[in-house]
C-alpha cells in the first residue's frame, strides 16, 4: 500500500503533544474537545523534582504527569475504548500502521524527537515520548499531524521507523494507538470536579517531598545550595530548569497557563465561580514562573548579578500561590 489518506481529519496546533493528540482524536471522532480540556480532565498538572533520575546529567524536572497519563485518562475517565499495540519487530510495526491507515483510521504514535527530520535542528534531543497522529501515506512518506507544529508535516518511512523504534529510557517500542469505541457524550458535571480533586491531591498531599508544592520548595532550596557552593554547573542547571519549563510544548510557564485555561473553560461549563477564581490564581502563579525564567536568564547572562536567594524567593512565591489556589478548590 502506498497511498492512503483520511480526508476528514483536520490538523490543529497544540502547545503540548499528548494533550494535542488526545483532543484531536476526540474531536475527530465526534466529541469536540479543546487541548486544555484534554489536559485538565487527565489531571495532568504536577510538579516533580527527581534528583536521582538524570537526563543528560541533569535531574528530572517535570511539570506534568509522566508520558501516557493523558492517553490513559482518555481510556479510563472519558470511557473511550482504545487499542494500544507495541511491536518487537519494526517491520511488523510499520505494516500494522499501514493497515490501519488503509482502513481510513487516524493513528496515534509514540516517537523519539531526535529522529524526526521535520524538527528544527536545535530542538532534536533524544526524547522518546513524543506523540503524534499519522493520518495518511503518500508513496514513501507519511502524512503527520504533529500537534506542536503549525501545519501538517511529512515524514519519510525510514525516519519514522527509526523514531518509533528508538531504544532507551521510555522507549516507545513502536507504540501505536487508536480509539475503537467512543462514549456518546461526556458528563462534565462529574468529570471536571473529579479531575480537579485528583489533581489537588498530587499537588497538595504527595507523600514524598519532591512532588507537588513541596517539590517546588525543594527545587528552591537546591538552587540556593548550588549557588552557595559556587558550583560551576549553576548556569547549566538554571538553563535546564527554564528548558523544562518552557521548551517543547508546555503552553508557557510549565503547563500552568494550559491548566488555567482548563479551569476557566470548566467554570463556564458548570457556572462555577470557585473554578473561575482558581483560574485567575493559576494565571498569577504562571506569571510568577515566567518571572523566574526571565530573572534566571538575566543572571545566567550576567546582565544582573547572580543572586540565588532572589530566584529561590520567586520559586517559593510560585509554591505559595499554587498552594493557596488548591486550598480554594478543596470544596469543588
Amino acid at each position: 500500500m502506498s497511498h492512503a489518506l483520511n480526508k476528514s481529519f483536520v490538523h490543529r496546533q497544540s502547545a503540548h503533544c499528548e494533550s494535542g493528540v488526545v483532543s484531536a482524536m476526540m474531536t475527530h471522532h465526534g466529541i469536540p474537545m479543546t487541548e486544555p480540556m484534554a489536559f485538565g480532565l487527565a489531571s495532568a498538572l504536577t510538579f516533580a523534582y527527581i534528583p536521582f533520575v538524570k537526563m543528560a546529567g541533569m535531574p528530572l524536572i517535570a511539570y506534568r504527569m509522566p508520558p501516557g497519563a493523558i492517553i490513559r485518562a482518555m481510556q479510563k475517565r472519558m470511557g473511550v475504548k482504545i487499542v494500544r499495540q507495541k511491536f518487537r519487530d519494526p517491520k511488523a510495526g510499520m505494516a500494522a500502521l499501514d493497515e490501519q491507515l488503509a482502513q481510513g483510521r487516524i493513528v496515534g504514535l509514540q516517537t523519539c524527537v531526535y529522529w524526526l527530520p521535520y524538527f528544527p535542528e536545535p530542538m532534536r534531543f533524544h526524547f522518546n515520548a513524543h506523540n503524534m497522529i499519522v493520518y495518511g501515506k503518500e508513496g514513501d512518506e507519511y502524512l503527520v499531524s504533529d500537534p506542536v507544529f503549525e501545519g501538517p508535516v511529512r515524514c519519510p518511512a525510514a525516519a519514522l521507523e527509526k523514531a518509533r523504534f528508538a531504544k532507551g529510557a521510555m522507549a516507545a517500542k513502536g507504540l501505536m494507538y487508536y480509539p475503537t469505541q467512543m462514549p456518546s457524550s461526556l458528563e462534565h458535571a462529574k468529570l471536571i470536579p473529579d479531575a480537579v480533586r485528583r489533581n489537588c491531591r498530587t499537588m497538595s498531599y504527595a507523600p514524598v517531598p519532591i512532588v507537588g508544592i513541596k517539590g517546588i520548595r525543594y527545587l528552591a532550596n537546591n538552587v540556593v545550595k548550588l549557588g552557595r557552593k559556587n558550583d560551576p554547573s549553576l548556569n547549566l542547571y538554571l538553563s535546564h530548569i527554564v528548558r523544562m519549563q518552557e521548551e517543547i510544548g508546555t503552553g508557557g510557564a510549565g503547563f500552568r497557563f494550559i491548566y488555567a485555561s482548563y479551569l476557566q473553560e470548566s467554570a463556564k461549563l458548570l457556572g462555577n465561580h470557585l473554578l473561575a477564581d482558581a483560574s485567575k490564581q493559576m494565571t498569577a502563579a504562571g506569571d510568577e514562573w515566567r518571572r523566574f525564567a526571565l530573572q534566571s536568564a538575566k543572571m545566567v547572562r550576567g546582565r544582573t548579578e547572580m543572586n540565588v536567594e532572589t530566584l529561590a524567593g520567586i520559586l517559593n512565591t510560585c509554591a505559595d500561590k499554587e498552594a493557596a489556589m488548591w486550598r480554594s478548590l478543596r470544596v469543588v
Partner: protein
Amino acid sequence: MDLGSVPQDTSPTYGGQRKLLYAVDENGNYTGVQSQGWEPETQATLTAVAELDRLRDDAWRRAAAGQTSALEFHMFDRRMEFDTLAATTGLWRWRIRRHFDPRRFAKLSTALLARYADAMGITVEQLRSVPPLPKE
C-alpha cells in the same frame, strides 16, 4: 499572561515555526496564541546545545590526539551521552567505557560496531574514524 505580553522574540531554535501558548485576552478569556519565541527559552536551549557541542569538540581533540576512541566523539556528535548510549545499545556502561580506549576500539568486531552504528544512525565506516574537523 496577557495577550499583549506574549513574546515574539524570533528564535533561531524554532526554525521559522511558531509555538502555541495560552494567554488571556482583554476580556479575561483564555485563548491560544502563536509565539515566535522567547529570549530566556532560546538562551536555555542554546546553552544545552552549546554544552553538547563543547563535549563533542573536546572528544574530537582527544580522539585526534589518540587519547580516546572515535566512539566518544560520535556519541556526543549524535547528541547522546553515556546513559543514552548505554540505553540505546543495551550495552553495560563499563563495557562502553572500555571501548573509549582507542586500541580496544580498533579491535572491536564488526557486529559490535554495527550495534553502535545502528543506535547512532550512522554507518560502521563513519563510526570507525572521526571526520577531519568538527562540524560547523
